[in-house]
């Protein structure tokens, strides 16, 4: 949109708003089931058909090839429309696997995997964490041995969202056990229908059933599925994590601002703003919501300017997690004993416990901030 200015941006925003009003699916996505995959797939396809998928993805992979400015405007309007964000089996594909392949995949991998993601055909899941490798992710031990032009994988992954619905997985495996731990890891695309993969569900404290643990027994994956080079997986994963901690989460982060707005509205309905303590906490989370957006936009702009992602990207993620903790607790205090009944806000409260854990616990993230951004000794 270079040189066209604000008028065109307003028109673009209006176009999105109208389209969302006319095409809103109207029903919430079913939870964690095969129907969820159908619902999400259909909704993604409808966005794709109208040119709203992959707004800033390259045209050659069926994206729109526009700037990230238009992508941001889409996220803003999407969140504002009230459509659910964050719970979809396409999240990893769209926000994570896609951008990683764009950054590090071969031309053939991009041509093969990117268009089906945008068309809503292929949900992805992530295979990073293991029972023995959480915060210390680089200690992972799921083994891949080279056998001709195949990798043979044995091991276990855990905390995998939507593994039961996914077609593909971003899988981290150890290909060189003798090398230092960061140097012997490979990032490979795993087809979830390959024989030897066993997906077992894990229920979470918020009632969710989208988590799984995954067992691999002699799973044969073509070496052609390796992204970048063998033993370069840590570097690929770090570019993925940088994406995860920054722009990929932008719509969810705006979703937290919408949650805060809903909570303020609830407090107004209950005439609780005259309670000084609640009013102060509500205005503080509103301010921190605004600050989260400002931090994220700056962080995205930094990434787009070509600057190396700074360790402060981690700070945005951690700040966001702590904000969700505050919102969850505040919701309980606004509702009082009405929160005993399982409902939207009590569910939110249960879910926010994950905000200090998912994508790396806030404890390890604060180590990263201390050591990499501030230069404190290990």
């Amino acid at each position, binding site marked *: *949109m270079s040189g066209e200015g604000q008028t065109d*941006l307003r028109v673009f*925003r209006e176009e999105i708003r109208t389209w969302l009003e006319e095409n809103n699916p109207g029903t919430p996505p079913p939870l964690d089931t095969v129907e969820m995959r159908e619902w999400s797939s259909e909704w993604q396809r409808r966005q794709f058909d109208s040119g709203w998928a992959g707004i*800033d*993805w390259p045209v050659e992979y069926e994206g729109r*090839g*526009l*700037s*990230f*400015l238009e*992508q941001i405007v889409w996220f*803003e*309007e999407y*969140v*504002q429309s009230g459509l659910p964000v964050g719970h979809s089996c396409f999240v990893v594909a769209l926000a994570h696997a896609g951008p990683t392949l*764009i*950054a590090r995949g071969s031309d053939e991998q991009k041509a093969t995997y990117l268009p089906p993601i945008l068309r809503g055909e292929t949900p992805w899941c992530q295979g990073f964490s293991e029972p023995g490798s959480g915060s210390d992710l680089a200690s992972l031990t799921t083994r891949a041995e080279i056998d001709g032009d195949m990798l043979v994988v044995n091991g276990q992954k855990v905390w995998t969202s939507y593994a039961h619905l996914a077609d593909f997985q971003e899988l981290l495996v150890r290909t060189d056990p003798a090398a230092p731990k960061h140097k012997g890891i490979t990032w490979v695309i795993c087809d979830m229908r390959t024989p030897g993969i066993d997906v077992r569900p894990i229920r979470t404290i918020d009632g969710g059933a989208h988590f799984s643990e995954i067992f691999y027994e002699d799973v044969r994956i073509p070496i052609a599925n390796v992204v970048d080079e063998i033993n370069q997986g840590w570097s690929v994963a770090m570019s993925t994590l940088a994406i995860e901690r920054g722009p990929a989460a932008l719509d969810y982060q*705006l979703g937290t601002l*919408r949650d805060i*707005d809903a909570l*303020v*509205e609830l407090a*107004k309905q209950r005439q609780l*703003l005259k309670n000084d303590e609640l*009013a*102060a906490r509500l*205005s*503080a989370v*509103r*301010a*921190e*919501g*605004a*600050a*989260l*957006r*400002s*931090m994220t*936009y*700056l962080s995205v*702009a*930094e990434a*787009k*300017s070509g*600057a190396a992602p700074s360790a*402060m990207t981690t*700070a945005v993620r*951690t*700040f966001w997690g702590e904000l969700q903790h505050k919102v969850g607790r505040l919701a309980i205090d606004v509702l009082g004993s009405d929160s005993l009944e399982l409902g939207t806000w009590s569910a939110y409260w249960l879910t926010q416990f994950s905000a200090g854990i998912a994508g790396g616990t806030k404890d390890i993230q*604060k*180590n990263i*901030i*201390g*050591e990499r*951004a*501030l*230069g*404190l*000794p*290990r």
Partner: protein
Amino acid sequence: MNFVLSSEQLEVSTVAAKVLGQLVPFARLRELADAAEAGESALAIDEETWRHCAELGWFGLGIPASRGGVGCGPIEEVLLFVELGRHLAPGPFASTVIATWVASASGHHDLAAQFMDGSRRAGLVVDEFLVDAEPGGLVVQFEGMSCALCEVGALEQVPSVDASVRLARRDVRAVVARVDDPLLAGRAQLLISAMELGIAHAVLDMSVEYAKFRTQFDKPIGTFQAVKHRCADMAMRVHAARAQTLFAGYHVESRTPDAPFQAAAAKVTATRAAKLNTADNVQNHGAIGFTVEHDAGLFARRAHILEFALGGERVAGPTLLEPDRHRFETLPPPVAEWFDVAATR
């Protein structure tokens, strides 16, 4: 996040840091405070230093060149005030800059010229107190969307938590000039937010340096997670306050409808950063941080004064809670330009 700022904008920071380091190093700050406490000086800052700052154009930084100012905007003002905060510059910098806006916008051009050339200063009304007011001088008073320049009555000094800041009981007389502008209060909040940000950042740097150098149990204390995480929390607050103050600066500059909300968010975020970081900084230093010889206390005291300037959270709160939602639709043009990069990946 310097990548979003122009080299001219960054120059404002560089010059201010250099000048303030020379004119008011902490040793000088302590001399001025001691003189004030001993009743030897009615002023928080000496005339020579003040004139020097005036010559640099600091009091007319945001006034259009056509009206005798430097012609910069809120972003440059923020960058200047971050440095004023970081150096704990004594004197009514924020209230004099606000007074210049009011005098200039209300057509009192002679008065504006006097503020800009450093021959006059203005203090600030903070609830029942006058901050850095002078005998026979003027003070800035906010009432909702309106900002007035008023004459000071009797000046009864009271002991201040921060000896570098002169405090007197409120006695306000005739209104000399008044401006009604919904953006003025927001722009003023940004000056205070910027100083709080400067303080929050200064004490972060101080804590990190100390945590690298101070050893206990044969290790730098920065290796201990309790200290490291406290420093990380301080860094997150600085990052949030900086991003929000800058973002709000663009909203004020572009005069978006969202500007008062964004500025109030900056004030709350920066106030929390300053008050929590200055407290953590004392803790990180242990007993030495509790001594008067150490600078940690100076930062805590100044942060306390600034928390209440312009009404603090009690004024910002209603502005933040009044709208039904965060508004996304008014992206200031300079912010939009950050992302206006074609898909080249």
